[in-house]
């Protein structure tokens, strides 16, 4: 059997519906639009992944007790070890173990369920298990339900990966640095903000870059719940024009283009924030 295929790269440049010139639809704008949605999904999801993931990662590094001050509460003897009376009518409750446990469970769940399954759980299952009104809101009434569901799903999934990177970064800093930061009188929040995190984030630039590239590429899964991002648009062009190779080549090139730019940019960032005098092979 002979392989016959009519190459026609010009379909990618169709900007009008004009069958005369072989354009059933404005494919060029479809690609632009799909690309736009891909960027929109990935960047919004990254905001969630980075901030929530950092929070989760930080929680997992906490060891010493965290005291929550609760006014007007009478401690019961049973929980004496994690409750302290302050003397002015309030009690302090140690919630450190709870926060740490919560973050650990979070990472375990979100990192271990396949992303596609998570996408379906958020979009098809969640609206059915919550109350009828809430389900209705999730499916129909909230603005852009497919988009925001995809963003939340990708963001929360990637947060578990970012969290692990942040945890690894913080844990790679010596105990001596913790001690020194505490010894000069910094509070725990200041120890993290001024000493641990600035160093930890520098260390984890490479894995964070990977996570961002991951979120960008994984955004293609949003097509399964109806977001018309780049991959979805590419398939649509394929179905309309039968120019499969051209359409997917365009998508491939666009994906690679963006990831290459991100990698290059992060290399520059890594070099810029490298700590003078510290040996860092990757950031020369």
């Amino acid at each position, binding site marked *: 059997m002979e392989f016959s295929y009519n190459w026609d790269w010009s379909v990618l440049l169709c900007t009008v519906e004009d069958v005369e010139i072989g354009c059933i639809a404005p494919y060029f704008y479809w690609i632009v639009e799909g690309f736009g949605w891909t960027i929109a999904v990935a960047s919004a999801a990254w905001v969630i992944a980075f901030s929530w993931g950092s929070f989760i990662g930080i929680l997992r590094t906490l060891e010493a007790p965290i*005291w929550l001050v609760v006014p007007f509460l009478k401690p019961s003897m049973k929980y004496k070890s994690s409750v*302290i009376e*302050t*003397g002015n009518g309030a009690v*302090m409750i140690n919630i450190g173990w709870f926060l740490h446990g919560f973050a650990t469970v979070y990472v375990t769940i979100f990192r271990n369920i396949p992303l596609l399954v998570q996408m379906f759980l958020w979009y098809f299952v969640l609206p059915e298990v919550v109350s009828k009104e809430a389900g209705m809101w999730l499916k129909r009434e909230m603005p852009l339900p497919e988009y925001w569901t995809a963003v939340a799903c990708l963001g929360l999934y990637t947060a578990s990966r970012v969290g692990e990177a942040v945890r690894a970064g913080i844990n790679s800093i*010596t105990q*001596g*640095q913790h*001690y*020194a*930061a*505490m*010894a*000069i*009188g*910094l*509070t725990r929040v*200041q120890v993290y903000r*001024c*000493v641990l995190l*600035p*160093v930890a984030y*520098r260390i984890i630039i490479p894995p964070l870059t990977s996570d961002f590239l991951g979120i960008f590429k994984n955004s293609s899964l949003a097509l399964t719940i109806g977001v018309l991002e780049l991959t979805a648009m590419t398939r649509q062009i394929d179905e309309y024009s039968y120019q499969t190779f051209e359409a997917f080549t365009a998508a491939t090139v666009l994906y690679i283009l963006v990831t290459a730019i991100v990698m290059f940019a992060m290399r520059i960032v890594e070099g810029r924030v490298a*700590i*003078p*005098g*510290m040996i860092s092979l990757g950031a020369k």
Partner: protein
Amino acid sequence: MPETENTTPSVESSPGVGMIQMEVVSKWYGNFQVLVNCSTKVDKGEVVVICGPSGSGKSTLIKVINGLEPFQEGVVTFDGTSVGDAATNLPMLRSRIGMVFQSFELFPHITITDNINLAQLKVLGRDENEATNRSMALLERVGLMDQKDKFPAQLSGGQQQRVAIARGLAMDPAAMLFDEPTSALDPEMINEVLDVMTELANDGMTMMVVTHEMGFAKRVADRVIFMDEGRIEEDCTKDEFFGGERGDRAQEFLSKILTH
């Protein structure tokens, strides 16, 4: 019964109560006891050297004073404030105690000046100008004015340790703790650090120094504490310690480190 006693214990600095006071302090790591009923007292302006074989609990002992290491039994007070009390504001307490570590522990991502400024800005609430002025004065004092804009990793060990001392002093501490400040240094750099410490002691700073530098102890210390297996075996004046009135364990230790 309503309690009417003063709730701010830090004002009771009666004579006889040391700046640093430890009463039968014990600490365990799991089943392993690192501190066994340690009691001692350091008065204002006193310089106390702590020595002993490795693993004897010296470092742990001074880290207990500013609450870096929790302890399970006993009472530690610093200038009247109980360190082990859960209601004590530990960051506030620590800001009044300077600490210098064996491996310097400067913050690698900020300049020398920023290292010394950091806690002044964040803890004492000084403004940038005030903090920098203080930092410059301290850098001048430790002889590192020309290094002010460098990063820690660009300095030699001895220089880093002097910066670390300046960082501690920038908080105008009531006492300074030194945890083997010269152990990680090349021999030719040890003296530049010891000189700064000697000067500090002569200025009347209250100091607790974990060190094996017996020359420094002889020159500067008021008292020497010898520790072994988590216990304070000797706690006496310098003259008593070096004059021969010491126990067998201390004798053995000294003969090991003073042979050359």
